[in-house]
């Protein structure tokens, strides 16, 4: 565990000295800030963050791949991955550390949005429960997005390709799945195709958090998919030795 923490610290430190983290954070904050300021933060608007939470689900599809694209791809391109993999740490520890590093960086990126809560409290009487559950949802969502990004980053040494793969997968999970579900037949070969696609949709599981409901089913979904992506990432790393 200490090795994971050590690697995580190294990962987080590398983020703070890398311009890409600041660019991604600034980009995220300007988009989210714009939507919040001119969408939600108007006199007479509901004193809630539900709308901005929904928007963030989409913004993050584009921001998180920027954060994760370099984590393994860059190491692979520069050759540092080899030395990391020959160090006395397991592939799982490497992947976990990379994941935690990116995820903590993501949480750091979210932190300034607490300003929105302060503003709502100053000018209205928001319900704090749904805000808290919304942030919990964002944390879990971020975990999944980061895991997808890491998996994409492990597949290639090209950062751009890694980001594009992440975009495509995340767009499919977050945005296209509900639409695909509507065009699919409800059942094919005895398999409830539509139900399956519906249940894999991020939106379905994320929406409850933003309105104040924390359902164990949704937590299982995010945790299970995150672990699954991390498992695949470990397998991709391992495969370098026998491919």
């Amino acid at each position, binding site marked *: 565990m200490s090795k994971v923490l050590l690697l995580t610290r190294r990962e987080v430190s590398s983020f703070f000295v890398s311009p890409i983290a600041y660019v991604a954070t600034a980009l995220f904050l300007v988009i989210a800030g714009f939507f919040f300021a001119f969408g939600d933060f108007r006199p007479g608007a509901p004193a809630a963050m539900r709308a901005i939470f929904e928007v963030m689900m989409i913004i993050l599809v584009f921001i998180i791949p920027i954060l994760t694209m370099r984590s393994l791809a860059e190491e692979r391109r520069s050759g540092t991955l080899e030395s990391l993999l020959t160090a006395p740490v397991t592939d799982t520890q490497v992947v976990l550390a990379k994941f935690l590093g990116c995820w903590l960086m993501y949480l750091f990126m979210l932190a300034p949005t607490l300003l929105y809560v302060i503003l709502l409290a100053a000018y209205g009487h928001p319900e704090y429960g749904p805000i808290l559950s919304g942030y919990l949802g964002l944390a879990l969502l971020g975990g999944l997005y980061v895991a997808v990004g890491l998996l994409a980053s492990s597949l290639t040494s090209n950062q751009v390709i890694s980001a594009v793969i992440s975009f495509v997968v995340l767009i499919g999970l977050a945005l296209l799945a509900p639409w695909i579900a509507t065009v699919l037949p409800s059942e094919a070969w005895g398999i409830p195709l539509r139900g399956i696609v519906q249940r894999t949709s991020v939106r379905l599981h994320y929406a409850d958090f933003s309105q104040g409901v*924390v359902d164990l089913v949704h937590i*299982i979904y995010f945790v299970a998919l995150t672990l699954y992506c991390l498992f695949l990432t470990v*397998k991709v790393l391992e495969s370098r030795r026998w491919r």
Partner: protein
Amino acid sequence: MALEKHTNSAVSEKSPPAPGMTQRQRWWKFGPNVLVAIALATVIAFLGVWLSGTLIRGRARSDWTKTGRFSLSPRTKALVADLPCDVRITNLYIHSPDNPQSEEMFRRVQDLVSQYGAASSKVTVEEVNPAVDAGGVEGLVKRLRERYAGELEKPKALIEDYGKIQKDLGAFLPAEAKRLTQAAAAWKDAPPDATNALRMVAQRWTQFAAVGQFVEADVTSQTEQALPAYSTAVARIKEYFKQVGDNFAAVPELYGQLQDAAKKAPAPEEVNALLAGAKTTYEPFTKQFAEFDKKSADLKELELDDIRRDISQGDCILLESPTQIKVVGLEDVWVRNPQADEQHPDVPERLFAGESAVSSTLLSMCKPDKPAVLFVTFGAPATMGGNPMMGGGGGAFAQMAARLRKANFIVEDWDLARSPEMPKPEHATKTILVFVPPPPPNMQMPVPPATPEMFKPAIDAVKAGTPAILLADPAGMMSPGIPYAELFELFGITPKTNAICVHKVVVDAMGNEKAVPQIEVTAYESSTITEPVKGLPTMFLAASPLVVAKESPAGVTDQVLIALPVGADYWADTNVMMAGRGEAKFDASEDLVSKKGEPLALGVAATRTVKDAEQKAVLFGGARFAEDRVAFYRDMLGRDMFPGNAELFVNSILWVAGSEHLITVSPETLQARRLGDMGQWVLPIQLAVAGGPTLLVAIIGIIVYFWRRR
């Protein structure tokens, strides 16, 4: 040594495959293992997600909203745990995977009713999708028919009677038409009017025979459907019998005229016989029609018909207790969202209010005893029975009364101009009086002036300890003042009805200002009543200020709920006429202002000790804030403009009724909590929010960049 061991193990774990193996061999050796592992992980992840969604969805969830919008409130849990009878709740939402929205709505309702089932063993929950679940529908229909078997006996007997009459009538009408046609043909020398009349009657009977067949088919279809519509069928029969009966009744007179004609132009024997036998021919039928009409006269609107109608509208919840069945419709469960408009497509059109709808229905089914709210009026209805001549259905508080009924109150008017006796509603556990200012004089409907003497019975009731809501009203030409002002004094409050609260606002682009008699508040003093309402806009229209006595009368405690805001833009103008027209000008020598520590109140909660018991009352400076036209005022987009009004009024009544534990804000309204006015700071704050954190992060990034380059 330990390091060496560790390094060895790490190397062996990560060591490359045996040298000398080709890539193909390596793929064959390791590939299948990895594929199996990935497949296994995929299956586990998929099963985890799928099974959790199927098995525990809605059962392991935590609701983090303040009012528990997504879980049963303590109030409902207490109600359900204390149910005196078994209740079956059936979710009748039509849903299909082809329509994800219908699935979502169904799921939400099912989650809710499942929670009712989990909260009490007396509640049975089932779901029947009317679109596909034929067995479920059949079972439901069978249950309903068995339940209403007694109620259906009478209409069933009526339908049987109809069958017999219709059988005779169906045979009689064509035969009689034929007989009439033959008679007209046989009467060779008849005046043309006479034969025309016979032919016309024959034609009418032929038409009635045809109509009778249609009616018979209609009655059959209405009574033979799964849930028979007996009321509709009986009404259709009565209409038909009336038409035929009216015509039959006119026949003897017509035939009498023809008999007169026959004296001048002798008619054959069969014609004379026909004309002479009018009464004996038609009277048996008219008697049967009259008897049918008499039997069906006391047939009440069937409960099953109501239920059938409600169910046939689709998407509803059916609640069955041993004594009653009620249907909770879509409009009650999914209320229209006042916040939804075209500019905000992401805001849902409907909000889920299932719990309040189901719980209030359960309450009305299982707990018939409830508090009564009497609106004390004088010569005009407040909650119901508006005068159609005056262009209205219900009174000024009709919608408010409906809201109170939903909160399980009995609501009635006590019109003192009609009766000094306080109404005693059946099943009322206690009475709360709401004093409504008398209406302005109406030349078309003169009523004696409302005096304190006329209000004495109600005033005495409050003095004796009846909980009350007192609504003041500024005195003016159109308003004679409130005849129950002494009640305010009873609670240590002086209503300044010679003044009206105004707010100076900018009214045009030139910056011109005008003082309008409208006070919109979103800030309230802390109290049980106002706590849930915080942030909701409440509008006080034409309200007088209330002055709280520095030293309350013995046994009285006052608490200001809403104060007139402090500031140069708010005051209570003593020129009521001018202020009412929006022409008020502040006059420091006469007008009243709110001061910190010495506020002018718009609403006060008071308690008073009467014979060792606590009496509660809430006093408001104006009555209009609770009238439907203000409390339920919607803008052109249909948004509820002042959701605080109704909540404040209902919460006040709950408080005086001693039901503080039920004080809350309705889920749909809670979502209408809005941001207050930010004045001129809106744009700067918006720009700061959008750009501030970004700029900060960018600056830090640049500093880090140059620091690293150094």
